[in-house]
């Protein structure tokens, strides 16, 4: 409890530090010449800290807050939970806070992401507003999983939404596209808040108070429970970037500053999952099977849709954003399966599925934090996020490249990455469901496995593209040619996240016992996974040992070159020109770009993606047969956005334009509106009574 309070306090302190007045940056001072204004002014100036110092202190304090929160979260997972009621802090219900294992898990993840992001942020020289808001955003992220009452939860949720919105808007002066992204984000996140607000208030209305303990024992009709689940699910899905409510996500991430997108993607989207688990499995104590079908279907849809668009994306951050949709989809498949099994009475399987889902939350947070930090570094170094214009960063940014490679390996769910472990657990829980569940399971589970498998395959292609095209080969644009390695703090932040990835990848068995506490809190069915070196499933036969696989691979990697070296006779590796078929040198324009890399997949999934392309042929003036210029444009629009949102938005605009005719500025008309409205209300009331 004290640790948690300290973490929150340090967040506020970091925000206050960032508010301190600062000296003008050193570069603006004329060097050598004393500044005009006399000795007193000079002394005042010397006493005011520089921007750099403030950034370092603020970043360090935020990182410390993150570390404390992580420890507090882990302690809560290990059974040292606590709860507190601060009745005077908010009107009506007061603020109820508690940290149980489930909340502790999400607190710990948030804390870990915060440490990396804060360290990364020190070197990137963020704007003042960003420096102030980031700690507040972290505080909000810590508040949500620790909330133990509807009031505190909604307060934290709204604080999270507002601060993140400010952060998305932070660079609106530099890039006008940010404003539109922020508008999308503001609308989506607040619509989500409204549905959650309605759902939770409805739930609280049926209970004696707003505390979660009181909500758990609330007596509600099935219809009311359905309404509550569906409305809150909509809001939480919007936060988690689940299709079709994902449209804000690929826009907001590229808009946010470099070290903020890891916080949003690694910590904030998790809150959507937390909400579904907390409300669906904990507060409502599970529900009918069809709830979880919806969750599972949404998850599968998001996983496939997200990864398909990630495979097509050429903007690095947009790619990572869609990949968040994909991974949250995988998590929701796990949550949905857990609810499905729990409703079906298969407790151990449900526990396994939920363990897999929560482990994937942790893993996704780790690798996505790493990848977004690297993407931020790349953007700072090259000025672009366009994979088509990147390339050749391996020699120019060696550390960032190596760290991105680790993240990409983890994100593509291949051994020895951490994503593989959680997907393996998820697949195990699904494939062993078949004998247990009825016809419904026989139809659902193979489809879910197919969806996960296709997602995994496409994720591999996506991250081979992101890494291979973005970082290897030669630079294809001026930005990539000028790139220089990121500042040291950025590398430390990434290295920390990479270390977390590797730890999770090799030692999931050390993490799983703590995770199990969080699972048993909502699905009490014993420990689904045991083992120290080898990860063994308890209720079904199945085992895997990530660390032994990694060791075997490492051994083979050492043995094979040694073997070749022993029999090889020529040991010098000759440098030579690239094989260019004997023609002139291979230029960077001949390289495969991200667009060309994804083209075969785009053709395969043409029906699902519906790409658009346009060819403009300009002929010379004299003859239509002589072509002067051919311009080819291709893009893959977000189909949900095109088909679902654009018609709705267009209708809203039409309605607004039409309604403008009602307001023509005539006072008489407005008065008559008031009169008619009043009369109408009175008539209605008279009829009702």
């Amino acid at each position, binding site marked *: 409890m004290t640790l948690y309070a300290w973490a929150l306090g340090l967040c506020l302190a970091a925000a206050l530090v960032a508010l301190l007045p600062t000296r003008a940056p050193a570069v603006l001072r004329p060097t050598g010449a004393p500044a005009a204004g006399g000795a007193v002014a000079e002394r005042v100036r010397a006493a005011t800290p520089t921007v750099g110092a403030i950034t370092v202190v603020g970043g360090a304090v935020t990182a410390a807050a993150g570390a404390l929160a992580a420890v507090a979260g882990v302690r809560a997972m290990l059974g040292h939970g606590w709860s507190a009621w601060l009745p005077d802090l908010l009107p009506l219900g007061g603020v109820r806070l508690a940290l149980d294992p489930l909340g502790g898990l999400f607190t710990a993840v948030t804390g870990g992401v915060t440490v990396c992001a804060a360290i990364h942020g020190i070197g990137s020289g963020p704007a003042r507003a960003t420096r102030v808001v980031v700690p507040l955003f972290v505080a909000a992220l810590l508040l949500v999983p620790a909330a133990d009452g509807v009031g505190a939860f909604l307060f934290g949720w709204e604080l999270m939404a507002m601060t993140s919105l400010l952060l998305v808007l932070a660079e609106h002066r530099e890039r006008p596209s940010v404003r539109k992204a922020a508008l999308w984000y503001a609308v989506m996140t607040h619509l989500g808040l409204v549905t959650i607000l309605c759902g939770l208030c409805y739930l609280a209305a049926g209970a004696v108070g707003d505390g979660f303990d009181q909500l758990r024992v609330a007596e509600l009709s099935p219809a009311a429970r359905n309404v509550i689940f569906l409305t809150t699910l909509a809001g939480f899905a919007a936060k988690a970037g689940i299709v079709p409510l994902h449209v804000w996500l690929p826009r907001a991430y590229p808009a946010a500053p470099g070290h903020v997108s890891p916080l949003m993607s690694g910590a904030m989207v998790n809150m959507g999952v937390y909400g579904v688990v907390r409300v669906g499995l904990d507060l409502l104590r599970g529900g009918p099977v069809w709830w979880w079908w919806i969750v599972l279907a949404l998850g599968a849809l998001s996983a496939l849709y997200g990864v398909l668009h990630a495979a097509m994306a050429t903007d690095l951050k947009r790619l990572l954003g869609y990949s968040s949709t994909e991974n949250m989809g995988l998590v929701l498949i796990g949550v949905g399966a857990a609810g499905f099994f729990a409703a079906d009475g298969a407790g151990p399987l449900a526990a396994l599925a939920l363990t897999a889902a929560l482990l994937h939350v942790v893993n996704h947070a780790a690798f996505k934090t790493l990848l977004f930090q690297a993407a931020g570094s790349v953007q700072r170094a090259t000025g672009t996020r366009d994979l088509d214009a990147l390339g050749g960063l391996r020699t120019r940014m060696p550390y960032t490249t190596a760290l991105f490679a680790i993240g990409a390996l983890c994100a593509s769910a291949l051994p020895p990455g951490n994503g593989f472990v959680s997907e393996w657990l998820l697949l195990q829980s699904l494939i062993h469901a078949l004998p247990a569940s009825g016809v419904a399971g026989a139809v659902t589970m193979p489809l879910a496995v197919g969806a996960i498998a296709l997602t995994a395959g496409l994720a591999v292609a996506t991250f081979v593209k992101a890494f291979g095209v973005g970082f290897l080969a030669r630079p294809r644009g001026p930005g990539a040619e000028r790139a220089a390695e990121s500042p040291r703090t950025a590398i430390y932040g990434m290295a920390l996240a990479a270390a977390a990835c590797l730890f999770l990848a090799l030692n999931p068995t050390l993490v799983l016992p703590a995770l199990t506490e969080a699972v048993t809190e909502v699905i009490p069915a014993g420990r689904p996974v045991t083992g120290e070196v080898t990860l063994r499933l308890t209720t079904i036969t199945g085992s895997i040992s990530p660390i032994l696989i990694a060791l075997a691979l490492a051994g083979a990697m050492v043995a094979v070159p040694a073997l070749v070296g022993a029999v090889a006779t020529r040991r010098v590796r000759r440098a030579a*020109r690239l*094989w260019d078929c004997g023609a002139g040198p291979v230029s960077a324009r001949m390289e495969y770009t991200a667009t060309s890399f994804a083209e075969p997949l785009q053709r395969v999934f043409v029906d699902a993606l519906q790409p658009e392309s346009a060819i403009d042929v300009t002929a010379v003036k004299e003859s239509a047969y002589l072509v002067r210029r051919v311009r080819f444009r291709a893009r893959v629009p977000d189909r949900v956005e095109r088909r679902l949102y654009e018609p709705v938005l267009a209708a809203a605009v039409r309605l607004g334009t039409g309604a403008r005719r009602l307001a023509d500025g005539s006072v008489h008309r407005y008065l008559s509106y008031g009169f008619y409205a009043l009369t109408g209300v009175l008539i209605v009331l008279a009829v009702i009574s």
Partner: protein
Amino acid sequence: MAEPPLERAKSPGVPELAGSVQIRHVDAGSCNGCEVEIASVFGPVYDAERYGARLVASPRHADALLVTGPVTRNMEMALRRTYEAVPEPRRVIALGDCARDCGVFAGAYGVAGAVGDVVPVDVEVPGCPPPPEAIIEALRGMTGR
């Protein structure tokens, strides 16, 4: 139909290659007469593969270049680069009269010279075009099988 070789080749071959020669064919300006013969060398009748020779797609995978035709100006640099792309140990076979001394194209304005003027030649196969037997003999001289 070709049968497996009955007796070993007369020459011991290139010892470092030891019975396996991957060949990259370079047409440096040939009239395609030699190409027809090469095709028949690797076809069912002569089947050079039974002696351990095989055509490959990249000079990086090759041990020997099989160069046909006089080296035209356009192919001079390409031939040199192809030679440089082959990892050591490497051999060059000049196939046909044109490759040896430019043949009927000698002195033509588009011809830069014989193959030997551009890259070091190890084996020469005379003929216009050389009969498949001669080509086979040259290849067996390399593989030693």
